[in-house]
């Protein structure tokens, strides 16, 4: 591979300046050819998918590139702005541009964790243990704080002692589903990031 130093790049730039008009490319083809770097695209042959940036609500459209490895695992190769989007026209800010580090992270919570009252450590638990215990807690708190008829004799059917908050990172359909289930349980304390 031809190594090009910064000084040489400057020289190429100067040498090429005379040829800009001729080629219309803004650089001298002959010089560029002579210093061509051999490289294949990281995303060649990859699967292209559509996504949307997970951070603010500009809604920058993303193109993502993945490849299935021999062992069946999926490798995320690249995330970039979608140049066809009327919102971002391919551009991304520093957050969107580093979205891969949010997507693939050694800091992820890998397994369900449980902290008993007063305990000083997390304990790794199974999904069954965790989901059963959460369900039992919901039922106990719901039964303890559910009001069917208020002091004025009105039917109100509300659970006062459980709150659900969050969802700005949900897909819309997840958020809708959360609302439906939580209202189904009778929750009145239902909130998300729009408030704060």
């Amino acid at each position, binding site marked *: 591979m031809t190594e090009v130093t910064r000084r040489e790049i400057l020289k190429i730039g100067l040498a090429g300046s005379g040829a800009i008009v001729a080629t219309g490319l803004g650089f001298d083809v002959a010089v560029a050819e002579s210093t061509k770097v051999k490289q294949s695209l990281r995303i060649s042959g990859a699967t292209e998918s*559509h*996504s*949307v940036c997970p*951070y*603010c*609500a*500009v809604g920058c459209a993303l193109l*993502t590139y993945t490849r299935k490895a021999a062992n069946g695992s*999926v490798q*995320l190769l690249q995330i970039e702005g979608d*140049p066809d*989007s*009327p919102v971002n026209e391919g*551009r991304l*800010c520093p*957050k969107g541009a*580093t979205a891969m*580090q949010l*997507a693939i992270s050694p800091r*992820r*919570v*890998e*397994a369900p964790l449980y*902290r008993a*009252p*007063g*305990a*000083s450590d997390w304990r790794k638990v199974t999904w069954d243990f965790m*989901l059963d215990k*959460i369900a039992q*807690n*919901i039922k106990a708190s719901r039964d303890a704080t559910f009001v*069917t008829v208020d002091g004025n004799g*009105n039917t*109100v*059917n*509300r659970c*006062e*002692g*459980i709150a*659900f*908050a*969050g*969802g*700005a990172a*949900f*897909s*819309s*359909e*997840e958020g*809708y589903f959360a609302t439906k289930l939580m209202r*189904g*349980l009778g929750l*009145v*304390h239902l*909130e*998300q990031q*729009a*408030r*704060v």
Partner: protein
Amino acid sequence: MTNHWRDIRNTDLILINGANPAEAHPVGFQWFMRAKLDRGAKMVHADPRFTRTSAVADIYLRMRTGTDVAYFGGLINHVMQNNLFHDAYVRNYTNASFIVKDEFAFNDGLFSGYSSDKRSYDIASWAYKTGSDGFATRDLTLQNPRTVFQLMKTHYSRYTPDVVSSITGIPVDDFNRVASMVGEMGKPDKVMTIVYAVGLTQHTTGGQLIRSAAVLQLLLGNMGRPGGGMNAERGHANIQGNTDHAISWEILPGYLKIPAPGQKNRDEYVAASAPKKSDPNSWNFFGTNYKKFLTSLLKTWYGDKATKDNEFAFDFVPKPASNASWMTIHDQALKGKMQGLILSGMTASSIGPDSNQVQQALSSLKWLVVMDALPTTSSEFWHAPGATPSAIQTEVFMVPTTHWIEKDGSFVNSGRWSQWKDQVMPPQGQARHDHWILADVFSRVKKLYQDQGGKFPDPIMAVTLKYKDPLKPELDEIAQEINGFDLTTGKRLSTFANLKDDGTTTAGDWIYTGSYPDSGNLMKRRSGISDPQANDPTGMGFYPNWAWSWPLNRRVMYNRASADLDGKPWDAARPGITWNGSKWVGDVPDYPATMDPHDPKAWLPFIMNGEGVGRLFSNGMVDGPFPEHYEPVESPVQNPLHPNNSASPVAFLYDKVAGRPNRFGGPQEFPYIATSYRLTEHEHYVTQHVPHLVQLQPKPFVEIPEELANEKSIKSGDKVRVSSKRGKVEVQALVTKRLGPMTVAGQKVYQIGIPIHWGYVGVSADSDPSHGRYWLANALTPFVGDANARTPEFKAFLVNLEKI
């Protein structure tokens, strides 16, 4: 946003308040720059801090935080006193001509109907005088002294340039320069946009700060028009979609009000909730169809258990006794009344307000479930630096969830564009989708009720889960459910106009009906800018076949108001919709597609409210029909307009009502104003886990004006303590000219700036000896919020500053 990101390029003048788009929404900001560079639009940035937005603005106004009502009130006054409003628009498209009841009054900072005991208003007098037909009386000459127009002119006559300057700190000459520019925007061929973010919302007067801007836009005739509107920049990827779908205590999907105790059936609910027609030419589309939207929702949620005989299970919908918002949740926990809290992608400890008090609230819970892909300050609150785990009896569950890229579904941006995304990656580790976790928990709860019985299990048993796998619903299935079906044909609906109140239609969220018609999922569409001729036929940047925009793929809301009484665009060069003699063309009309504007029975332009016109005067707010300036709860000065009623008279005071000790500070002990904000490189708290972004902005800091720093001998890099009545942060000082002294009510005040991003969890905290013990910005913020929305007053509070 009433409009959308790309549309900002169509404007002549951009007012930016309570926002810093160049840094907080940098990619959206390209459309501000396009307006400037391509059509010579001007940009005015009013903000406490000189930011990168200010750097490219034509005029920067250093403004005291939370004083935007005074600023917009001053602009309203300028426009009214000098007859610079859009005359035809104001007469015909707003309620300027409506006559208000004689009992309505405003004196010494209080509107009529105030009760100091209850700290609330009886709003009976905030209403129109009605005629024998029951409709509001009007005077289209606007001369009657009881017209909205004349009352408003009097109300804002107090907001002279001198008064505006005294409240906001903006020099009179600078204000007058902006007023002249804004005054030009009432000409029919000119249009201005107002862009804002949480710098307007996060105040005890937040709702009114925004309303004051909207009132100005109505006066100038800029609502409903390309390049105009009121445009809120939202801060999370899908905060819009999940507001639409009502993860909010006071609404059901599609902005239907949550039913209240005492409402026994749908008719009583609609009578109390829906807008009422107050003019014969008002369509009152929302009010007229409210019952259909509710019934279709109930039918969606409760299926076969929702029948005519049981009012479609109206009783199943919980009816809150009182406010149940974010601060109320923590207030209830402090009182021992809240047993469990489920947080998803949201960390109470960092958000606050008053993080120390919020941590107390979390410690008072029996159990806390944190659903997240990464640890948060709430999942770790029980062993935060300084905490004693053995003293905290809260049972905590950390539930690992998938990231956005590991599931499909839609994200809705600030401009209401619902963009479907693919599942790109399989879940990492043992992570599961949030909706699968919720479905699984719900099914286990249901089983417990089936086995053991318990309180009113009927709704739990009735909730529809008609998915291929009820434990693992596909988001595509849910998207279809949200869109809704005609149950008589089994086909998906293409418009909410076809919804019925007899139980023969479903729609999980009526404003999304049409997003997924029988032809397929329109949110997946991607006909973009590579072919503008085909994909942007009007040339206005609507790109109607890129994704889908609610409602009905409309790109500019209220667009009937973009055309004059004859249906011609106010500005031929920037049409929204146009009457071509037989139908409306252009954007998807916010109006019946073939209604001739010359028909004497033609509907008024704003079809969603009872008046049919934009409301300069509104009884929809609890703190007054006209926006009025009130000081933040913590302020260094008394309100120059009415010192006897300095701060909001109706903001809810949680600690006081609960009998807890006062947690507000005064200017003697805490002499400096503080405000909080984001940096480009971080998004709230999750980016503390992203190494590249932590490298770019590694450590917490506070921005201190140079003059104040000199007084205190503080240099950049020194460690300082910023404290409020509630808590403290100990971080590095960044001494800057971006902030500076201001003269307010005759006295010199300083503002300090505090980025919100750091806490005791993340890459930075891991490498810090104190583990980020005093890094939570919201340890400083007050536990009080907007009188209407209860959004906390994060953006204006008092602090002290010391070098340590």
